[in-house]
């Protein structure tokens, strides 16, 4: 599978990490703690899970004007996801990574992958994302 790159990551190395599959609609502001990267919505089945260092797959991003602030804060605290995969481009979330780049703080890549393709990735599976967006599942 190949994901479309919305904002490239700052590293020239491929990203290798475990997937966290977020099926319910999620808003970064109010949905993820900017301090520790945990999922905070008590109504979500993933409540309390950590997004730190994970490749998070988001089926449906609920828009919030402050999503960019939350992502930038996670990046500065070195608590960001390893990569963020969305079902469609989102300019506000992307801003968090764009501003991080300007601040010279290492930013994770933000990519786009259809919800259908996302559903082929199992929660917890180890993934490798190459810098060109090629996405591979470690089957071992």
């Amino acid at each position: 599978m190949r994901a479309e790159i919305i904002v490239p990551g700052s590293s020239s190395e491929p990203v290798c990490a475990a997937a966290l599959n977020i099926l319910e609609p999620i808003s970064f502001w109010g949905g993820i703690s900017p301090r520790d990267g945990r999922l905070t919505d008590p109504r979500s089945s993933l409540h309390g899970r950590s997004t730190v260092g994970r490749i998070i797959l988001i089926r449906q991003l609920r828009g919030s004007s402050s999503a960019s602030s939350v992502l930038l804060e996670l990046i500065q605290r070195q608590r960001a996801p390893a990569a963020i995969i969305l079902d469609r481009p989102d300019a506000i979330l992307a801003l968090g990574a764009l501003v991080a780049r300007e601040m010279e703080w290492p930013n994770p890549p933000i990519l786009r992958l259809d919800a259908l393709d996302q559903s082929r990735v199992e929660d917890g599976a180890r993934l490798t994302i190459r810098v060109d967006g090629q996405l591979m599942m470690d089957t071992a």
Partner: protein
Amino acid sequence: LPVRLERCDQAMLDGADGPAAAMAMRILLETARILDADKLIDVASAHIDGCLYHGDSGAHFAERLVEFGGQVRVPTTLNVGALDLIHRGRDRLDAQPRAMARRMMDAYVALGCRATWTCAPYQAGHRPALGQNVAWGESNAVAFCNSVLGARTNRYGDFLDICAALTGRAPHTGLHLTENRRATILIDVTGLSEAFLADDIAYPILGAWLGHEVGDAVAAFAGLGHPGEDRLKALAAAAASSGSVGLFHVIGATPEAETLADAFADRPPEQVITVTADMLAGARAGLTTARIARSEPVQAVAIGSPHLSVAELLALDDALGERVCRIPLYACTGRHVLAEVAPTGLNERLAARGVVVVADTCVVVTPILPDGGGVLVTNSGKFAHYAPGNTGYDVVFASLKDCVESAVSGRLSLGGPAS
């Protein structure tokens, strides 16, 4: 297709206006590319939501822009910060985040923004003209600006808002384009009772319902009459929090909808929804999360999201009369309103009766409500939406009258539903 640069854009990118404008232009162009915009356009003003403290990173970004000599190029107002600079000691922040929140607020002022600190800038003198392109942040302000003023803005997220202000430019996309401003959904409210529509409580309920129902589509109301600014403000705020409504029309009342044909740009509606009292009952119930009955104890009352206008503050004064609140009643408003009513002594009169006036910020964006949680009563659709997640309080949505009665008695007052 790449974003087409005009000469002024290229000059800014090359540093002709200094490193802050260059940085803002780089961020703006990347965003324009993600949004598939063909070019940038001039904006006449900006309203910044990015000045609210979410952590140190935002303060560092703002201070970097100051260090780089950034100055806004268009008149720019500021949304709420995390601190009430008028009434010290309102917030329960620790010393470190308080200091950083203050540094962040100071940095935005140093960039040339006006220290308005309000989510109702449109009632603090910032009123762009019909058809003017602007770059505003804060969802309620965006919905009001588009719908009630007829000026044109997309929802500018944190950081993009200040980049637009520093360059005077914004991506040519979304609600800046005439074709995206026509309504596609007709909302017929002629079946609702006159008594219901004559009551303030109808408007946050209609807004909450609208946001759930249409998401980010453009709808036009028929049969709403002339609700007046404060009611449209309540409707817009609720619609922009329950959904992503950035623009709606009220046929016969808002500037781009003199007639039904204007609102729909001479095309037929793609969908017609006839609103019934039953449909609104669900939206109204969704604004309450606390499972308590009438006369049970409540811990706090909050009004003023968006910030109270002078008229709304006077309505609070009227409803309270000479009585004193038994539990705190937080009234959130802007310093522009406090300045206007100062000669009348209203501030002191409200304080003497137990009203906690909050300026420059509000109770759902910074810790102000008493620690420990409980039940909060509010007449704001937006507070009702955000308070449970942000404050830990459960909410009861009620009329202004019931908010005041609950504050006076310390127990939940609920009059009969107006619908």
